[in-house]
């Protein structure tokens, strides 16, 4: 495997982690989280800044998960009693607040100039070995996350969050409080996104606020929708499809050479958008099928 493929695989697995969190939140519980990138950003900055202060990575990754998870808690408390659509707006607003805070708090985050020189995983290893080791670690973490989400989905907890997705009022009538379940789901999904952020920061080694725009959230939504809402396998497959088209559209330039380098960036986003439209038209349940087809 060459370095380019390893690089794509690492980024793809980061999207898989993000998609797993959203699958738990939206696919299983029905929470419309439009602010996923906010938790991703908190994880990335937490781990990066701590690592630059000399904290070992073995501690910065859990710290990223904990801080991203904790940041979801107040949002949950404030907004989970709101209707679905208001909740969506609150989360979108939250992720923009996170981006604006990291843009303006220069003393902490170095503002728009970003945080350079973030230590890599496996600094001791050279070249491809380091990359392969990184890939192995993120793959292992992703497998653990898949196992966790599957375990949750098949448990009494999973049954209840699906009940909440189907009819929240009926859950209340049976003596269970949907809000507490939704907060837990929000925290777990955010913590996974935080870990994804930490991997991203230590892989890219240079983070700036512009990497954490709402478009990232919607890429994750695309992955979940294309893979199949409410299917854990859908999160994995959807993220893979997304990556194939995000990266594959790079080679469009070989076919359509008259498009400039600058225009190409927009064309690639257009290609992914077109793909989503085609999926929704011809396979609305996603590639792996959604929760309506069990």
């Amino acid at each position, binding site marked *: 495997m060459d370095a380019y493929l390893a690089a794509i695989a690492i980024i793809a697995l980061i999207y898989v982690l993000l998609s797993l969190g959203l699958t738990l939140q939206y696919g299983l519980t029905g929470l419309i989280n439009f602010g996923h990138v906010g938790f991703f950003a908190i994880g990335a900055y937490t781990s990066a800044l701590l690592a630059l202060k000399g904290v070992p990575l073995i501690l910065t990754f859990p710290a990223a998960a904990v801080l991203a998870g904790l940041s979801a808690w107040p949002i949950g408390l404030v907004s989970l009693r709101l209707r679905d659509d208001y909740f969506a707006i609150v989360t979108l607003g939250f992720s923009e607040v996170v981006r604006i805070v990291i843009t303006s708090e220069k003393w902490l985050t170095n503002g728009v100039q970003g945080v350079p020189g973030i230590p890599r995983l496996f600094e001791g290893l050279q070249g491809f070995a380091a990359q392969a080791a990184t890939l192995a670690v993120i793959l292992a973490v992703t497998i653990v996350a898949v196992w966790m989400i599957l375990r949750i989905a098949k448990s009494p907890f999973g*049954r209840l969050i699906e009940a909440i*997705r189907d009819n929240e009022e009926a859950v209340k009538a049976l003596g269970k409080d949907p809000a507490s379940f939704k907060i837990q789901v929000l925290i777990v999904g955010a913590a996974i996104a935080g870990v994804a952020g930490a991997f991203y920061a230590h892989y890219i080694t240079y983070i700036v606020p512009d990497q954490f725009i709402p478009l990232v959230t919607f890429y994750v939504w695309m992955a979940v929708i294309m893979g199949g809402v409410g299917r854990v396998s859908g999160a994995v497959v959807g993220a893979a499809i997304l990556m194939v088209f995000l990266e594959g559209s790079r080679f469009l330039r070989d076919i359509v050479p008259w498009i400039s380098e600058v225009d190409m960036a927009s064309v690639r986003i257009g290609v992914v958008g077109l793909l989503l439209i085609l999926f929704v038209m011809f396979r609305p349940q996603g590639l792996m099928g959604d929760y309506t087809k069990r």
Partner: protein
Amino acid sequence: MTLEIRNVTKAFGGFQALDGVRLSVPLDSLFGLIGPNGAGKSTLFSVISGFLSADQGEITLGGRRIDGLSAPARARAGMVRTFQVPREFSHLTVRENLMAAAPAQTGEGLFGLFFRPGTVRREEAAIAARVEETIALLKLTRVADQPSGKLSGGQKKLLELGRALMVEPRLILLDEPFAGVNPVLIGEIMERIAELNGRGIGFLVIEHDLEALTRLVSRMAVMDRGRVLAEGEPAAVLDEPQVREAYLGGLS
């Protein structure tokens, strides 16, 4: 032991939906609640079960004040409601709907789920056994593994009753259990309700099918314009002049 409703009022803007309702429902009784459309019956159900808050008044269940509690807390206190339009968990099977309704499950906590798998397994087995009994009782065996969204209206009504039973309440509030149900199934639902009442579970039933209701309940109350007009044995209640005038005028 009773469910006591004292001077409960509820207004929506200028509309007085409940206007000083007083009602006393013994917890082991079969109690009917009738009244013309807009009389406030469903609003009263929502206020009793905590889905709406009362503007004024007091509600006690077995002597305990419950009007300050949330809807889930009231259900846990022993009083479960069903809905006029069934609210099944449509993508879950009948069996899963009933499993989800069982109270106090260790596996519904993330900690218990990952760190006490043995307890979770034992509880699931016990819940599954109770679910089988409930399925047999309500004659839902044939559809037990179907997604509940695909059931008929009558079967959904039975499923809601089953889910309420899984909570092991003292009192079940049934909102129009016979609406949209075919006559054969109405007979069956009535039999089940009577049977369950024999085991000590109370029922407060809103129903428009007066003929079915009077056969089922031992006491009933009549509401009109947010007030309780009369209360007592069905025959006596239906004979009261003000009830006939307000509600049955055209019919008798």
